[in-house]
Every structure is written in C-alpha cells, then in structure tokens.
C-alpha cells in the first residue's frame, strides 16, 4: 500500500474518532440502514475497522436500488458523520474503502450481539417445536439479503459508474474519463472535416452525396448520444424512452419528407380543408 493511500484511510480513521454522528444507527431506515449494515460487516473483519474495497455494484445489489440512489445515500451518510471515505479508485473497476463512525460501530456491535442472542434463543425454541429451520426466523443481517437480490439489481449500472469507453474509441485503454471525452471530441472534429472535404469534392451522384452526409451525421449522432449524453452507461429506461420518437421520425421522413409532392397533395382533402 502506498503512503498516499495509507494516509487516506488513516485520515478517515481519525475523522471517525473525532466526529460524533448526527444520528444513531437505529434512526436510519431504508437504503441508508442497509448500506450501513453492509459496510459494518465489512469493517468488522478488519482489526482497524476499515472496510474492504467496496464497489457501487455491490452496494446496488445490497440496497436493491440504482447507482444514483446509492451514491446519494452514501453522501447523506457522510453528511451525518456515519461514514468516512478512505482510500478509493475512480474509473473502470472503481472501489472505495469506508470507515464507520466509532460510536456507530460500537452501537451496531452491541445491537448485533443482542440480536444474535435473541436469534439463538428463538432458534432454540423453534427447534424444540421442530417446525422451522434456522434460516426462516430471527434477525437477518443485511449481508444475508444480498444473494437473493442479485437478480433484481442487474449489472446495467456498473458501466455507468465505470464510464468505460471502447478501446477503439479512445485509441487504446484509458481510465481517465476526461481524456476519453477529449478523444470523443477529436472524433467529432475528424468526421466534420471529412464531411466538409467530401462535399467540396462535389461528387455528381445524389445518392453518394446523401449517403456520405447522412452516414457521417448518424456516426456523429452516435458519438454524441452514446458518450456526451451518457446513453452508453444510462439504464435501459433512458435508451428506450429515447427510441420512442423514431416511429414518428420514420413517419415524417418516409411518409412526408421523401415522398413525391403528388403523394401528399390529397392531405388537405383528407383533413377536410
């Protein structure tokens, strides 16, 4: 571990000891409660109380929600001095290590001890009656919820968080999204220059001209939509919503724009004008 990375975790540990949480763990609900429980499990494995390297994908699965919701919840937890961000890595395969507030960590430890005692006594009761297995009763920690929710959350948020670009687009692999976006801009400039040069050539064929112009426009459109508008990483809802007007585009261009004038002369009669 490098010195810089060590310092981030150390700083988080110092903050976790020196800042009192604004709320108690028991006051948390929903996503924030689930995330805190999961991070607690991870922190409790380390003698210093530093979590493992946690990805947004894991947290989405645990909380069964979208990446933006998880990120907002994490920020709220940090605002409440419950979580402190340690070492992290941005970009493809990004992860973060967290440290829980010392007070919250101790509270949760105590709470879970009480819960486990209650669970074991309840299990004993059930075993005596012989009706239920151990898994069906007692308090389930957040960790045990993860496997059953994996199928729901899916992986479509991973790329959104990673902002990974195809290697051919960025002329080789890059983890720096800024550099990748500059290269996308370079692609757009390249296609624009090609477009202008093609027209300056003055090809006589109408079809050739239209193919070049439409073709390059669609390629540029793909670059802008996929990367600048984030559609390559957005959830399917966005892509499917954006696909809706294509039906109307087809109607407008094929039924009106590209028809011979006579084909629509009767529209006025049809519409009753």
């Amino acid at each position, binding site marked *: 571990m490098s010195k810089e990375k060590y310092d981030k975790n150390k700083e988080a540990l110092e903050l976790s000891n020196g800042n009192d949480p604004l709320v108690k763990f028991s006051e948390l*609900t*929903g*996503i*924030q409660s689930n995330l805190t429980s999961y991070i607690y499990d991870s922190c409790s494995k380390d003698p210093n109380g530093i979590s493992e390297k946690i990805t947004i994908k894991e947290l989405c699965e645990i909380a069964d*929600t*979208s990446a*933006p*919701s998880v990120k*907002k*919840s994490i*920020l*709220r937890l940090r*605002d409440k001095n419950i979580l402190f961000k340690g070492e992290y890595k941005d970009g493809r395969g990004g992860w973060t290590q967290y440290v829980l507030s010392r007070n919250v960590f101790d509270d949760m430890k105590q709470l879970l001890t009480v819960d486990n005692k209650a669970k074991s006594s309840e299990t004993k009761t059930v075993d005596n009656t012989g009706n239920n297995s151990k898994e069906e009763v007692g308090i389930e920690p957040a960790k045990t919820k993860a496997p059953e929710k994996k199928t*729901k*959350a899916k992986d*479509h948020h991973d790329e959104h968080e990673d902002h990974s670009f195809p290697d051919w687009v960025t002329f080789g692999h890059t983890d720096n*999204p*800024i550099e990748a*976006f*500059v290269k*996308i*801009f370079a692609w*757009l*400039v390249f296609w*624009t220059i090609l*477009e*202008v040069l093609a*027209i300056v050539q003055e090809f006589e064929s109408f079809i050739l*001209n*239209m193919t070049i*112009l439409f073709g*390059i*426009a669609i390629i*540029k*459109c793909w670059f*802008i*939509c996929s990367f*600048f*508008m*984030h559609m390559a990483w*957005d*959830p*399917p*809802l*966005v892509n499917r*919503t*954006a696909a*809706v*007007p294509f039906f*109307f*585009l087809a109607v*407008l*261009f094929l039924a*009106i*724009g*590209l*028809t*011979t*004038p006579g084909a*629509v002369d009767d529209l006025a009669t049809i519409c009753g004008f």
Partner: protein
Amino acid sequence: MSDDHEHHAHIETPAPFLFCIATAIMFIGLVMATAGGEDKTGDTGYWFVFIMGIIGMFTAFFMWIQDYWNQEGEEDEHIETHHPFWATISTRKFGIWIFLLTEVMVFSTLLSAYMRYRAAVPDYSPDIDCGLQFEDCWVPAADVIRSHLIFGVINTFALLLSSLTVVLALYAAKNNNPKAATRYLMVTFVLGTLFLVLKLWEWGEMKDGHFWGEECSVVKQDIAHHCIAPKYEHGFWLDTSIEGSTFYITTGTHGAHVFIGLIALLYLIAKANKDGYNEKDHETIELFGLYWHYVDLVWVFVFPFFYLY
C-alpha cells in the same frame, strides 16, 4: 420512498405550468396575428394576445428562477415504483428526456418539411429550363453560403467544443471542484455566444447580398459553379424564396434553442458562483448538458443539409 430525500425540501412551484400556458397563448397570438382572420392574412387584434403571452412567459420564467434560486441542494426524487426497471433515474432526468422527445418532433418536422419542398422543386440542371431568374429550380442555401462556409464550419466546431466543456463542467463538479465547473460553464457560454454572433453576422451578409463570388450568367446558366443565382442578386432572405424560408426558419429555430440554452447557462453560472456545484449537487449541470448536447445534435443534421448540400 426511502429516507434519502428527507433533507431535500421539494419546491412545488406553479411556474413551469404557467410558463407552458403563456407560451401557448403567445403562439396562438402569433399565428392568428400573422395568418388568422377570414382572409388568412392576419388579424392584428391578436397582437395583443401575443404580447400578453410574452408577458406571461417572462413573469413565469422569473417566478421559476426565484423559486429555485434560494434552494439549497437539488431535488433528487427518483421515480416511485416497485419495478426496478423504472426506478433507475431521477424524475428530473426522466422529465428532461420527455422534453427532448418533443424537441425531436419539432426539428424533424422542420427537416421533413425542407425535404418535402426540395423534392417538389427540381435541382438545377443544364437540361432543365429554370427560367431567367432560376425561379423554377431549387438553388440551395448551401450554394449561397458556399462563400461563407468557413463560418459555418467554425460554428460547428464551437458547438462541438461547447458540448465537451459541458461534460468537463459536470466532471469537475462530480470531483468537488466547483471553481473549475464554473469556469467550464463560462467557456460554454462564450462558445454559445460566438455561435450566435457568427450566425447573426452570416444572416446579415446573406440578407444584404454580400456574397463573395461572381454573379451567374443567365445565358450560360452556370450556377453549378456556385455563382450567385439571379434570383438572389439582391440578397437571400426569409421571403426571397422557399429556399430562404426553409433555411431561416430551421436555422432560426435552432438559434433560438441556443439562445434559450445561453439564458439557462447564465442561471447555472450565477448559481454556481453562489452555491457551487459539487459531488452531491450536480444533476442540474447534467440535465442542462442533455439539452445542450441535443442542440448540438440538431446542428449535426442542420449543417450538412443547409450548409453543405
């Protein structure tokens, strides 16, 4: 709903609704004032409706700004649903996508109308008798602009670059660098302004007939060499020909979108100076970015079809 939203008060403002109503009134007034009445030549009484619509738009707009100006943080409601497919983006983001869909319809109407008109009139060919003024042939705006093409190219690069700077502003905000985010937004504003200034100058040049080329010889009908068609010798404007109408209406509508984007940018820059966008509150830049990229996207199609061919 989770407790994620407990610290974010939602502003329930009627301003957007009022803005829409006022816009509708403005358009009804405009259409009726210019093409209403029994003889379809316009009913001047409707200019009053038009002005009332404009006043309503300004009032609603400033109400809107005022309501959000003092808001700390951003709205972060997600779509409320039990199905995970729908709960993946915020309501604001879904809203802006729906808005963009309607915008797609606006520009596809203009472009398909252009194509329809162009299909109705034959392009110039030595085999066709185009008339003394070339009035019976389609002389595309691209031929008129050919001498000024460099400004169209500069504008294209300006818009593409401004799309990049919006993305950089978003990433700067996400990385907790509000100053850089503000700077990138300002650069975007400058590039958008450059686009509009060049556009207006270009329009002025064409309107006054300041073309950089020779006039066509009517005898030879050599317009294929991009000389100036006789029908444009006094300039190329909205009412000169159907070519002029389609060109100015389409590029004008696009320019209006750029202008509206600049107004939104001014708000963003002012808000960024006041509060600063950061890793927690940056969705507004993302949503503005979607609009701005869409404006760029429209230009990707307008440029080749009006400036190149």
